């Protein structure tokens, strides 16, 4: 019983951490491509720099919002599920039969 509860907490913590990490990885790859394309465009045509920069910022924000969704899920896992229930679970574990 204590073992299973410990596993529950451990998995919660792991999920909370890994969620954002993987999402950040994907977002970073995507944003890198966007940045590279924007820089190439500016290098080709410096007078279009303003428009390209605007479009780049929009694209960056859209990609980043996906990582933010993952962050939100992570926060929910950690603070809404993990934190309130966590110490109750720990108390249960401490009083549970071994």
């Amino acid at each position, binding site marked *: 019983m204590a073992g299973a509860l410990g596993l529950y907490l451990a998995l919660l913590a792991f999920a909370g951490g890994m969620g954002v990490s993987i999402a950040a990885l994907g977002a970073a790859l995507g944003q890198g491509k966007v940045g590279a394309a924007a820089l190439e465009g500016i290098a080709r045509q410096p007078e279009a720099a303003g428009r390209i920069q*605007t479009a780049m910022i929009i694209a960056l924000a*859209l990609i980043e*919002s996906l990582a*933010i969704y993952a962050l939100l899920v992570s*926060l929910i896992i950690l603070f809404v599920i993990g934190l309130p229930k966590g110490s109750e679970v720990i108390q249960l574990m401490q009083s549970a039969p071994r």
Partner: protein
Amino acid sequence: MTTPLSLAAMVLAAGVWLMPARAQEHSAPAAGTAPATAPATGEHGAADAPVQSGGDHNDGPKEHGPAGQGAPAGGLHETGTTHEAAPGHGAEVSHEGAGHGAGGHEEEHEEVSIHLPTWLYTPLKNFWYAGPSTLSAGGAVNAAGEPIDGKALENKTVEFSYLDHHSLIKPKPRYTIHPVIGTIGKQTLNPGSKTETVTIDGAEVTLVNPTVTFAYASMFPELWVISMLTALGIALATFLMTRKLERIPSRKQTLLEILYTYFDGFVHGLIGDHYKRYLPLVGTIYIYVLMMNLAGIIPGWASPTANINVPAGLAIVVVLYVQYEGIRVNGLKGYLMHFVGDPWWLGPLNFPIHAVGEVARVLSLTIRLFGNIFGEDVVIVILIMLAGMFTKGWFPLQAPMYLLAIFTSFVQAMVFSILTCVYIALMTTHEEGHGHGHGHDEEHGVYHDGHAPAPAV
């Protein structure tokens, strides 16, 4: 340029930016957000933090390092130990997040910020404490230690000695209040839960994890106050700056004209020739969101946008307005055909996809703005806590994050308003019919409109 006044302003700004983490502890997060589900939730209104018996306010300092710390993590600490009482978990998330929300305003916070003098706060508190209040608890046990059913105790008025543990007066004062008992849960006495003993109907009842909510204090939640103040501030500032408009502009007027021309340019580029109608909405959204995001940087305040309700409200307004404009410009049939898409016989497939896409826009706008601003707040709070743990609170570890927060505020405000323009453009361009494939990437839709891209201003 470096007049004494601007120099003083710069020094003050630098001082605020580099404020030691220790000083932030007083304005630790307790700030406004998530709808309080139960009166017991320590969300923002004043003093509804859990009542501590005796003086064990700082129990559990182990996680916060040296004893001098108290709470940057005052909010963090509280949430750590009050979750037993508060059924509203959503509030805990917001506790972390609102960063340095707190006592800036006299209407709401029980967290006295170091900037508010006690002479202002104390009479206010006396006013709050004299008003109606609710005492809720996680559980109730009688003198023998057996749990009592909470229903029997509800709506009784008791006399309670409330310890104001957020006060800066030493020793922390106790006030005698007469709260009405609210919901009482089913918790039993666990080691480590806080208890208070009250006398109800002559019998001694021990309440487990009690919390007090003051009606007057929760009438002005911080969220509401700050967003109203922001709106009023913007209105006032613009009003004052447009009093004497002249053809040859003064410096103030030039600033306003630069802002206006900037908005005019980019909205024109995104929407097209019928853009004038939408300019006020987009400009307002940009400035309002920007100011609300920046409000979190002022010590003692929190960004209203760090609460999910504010971006949600804005996103709902934007999407509903876009639907309304779609119907107004294209007619009801045209609006529905927009959903049906290009080959009409793929309609049954396209219609649900587009409809869900519209709903998804609400979600994505909300979560993008909320997640960015709230995430920044969380990072700042955690850095303050770290600074407290390792440097006894003197090193401003959170300072670089403030710069990122300022940058993020601008970028997110801009993205919100640009997406508003783009949604409007998608819905109201009727010159080309549905020739341009509306892919689900807005960029595509914008540049196929047949309008010149944003003019280089």
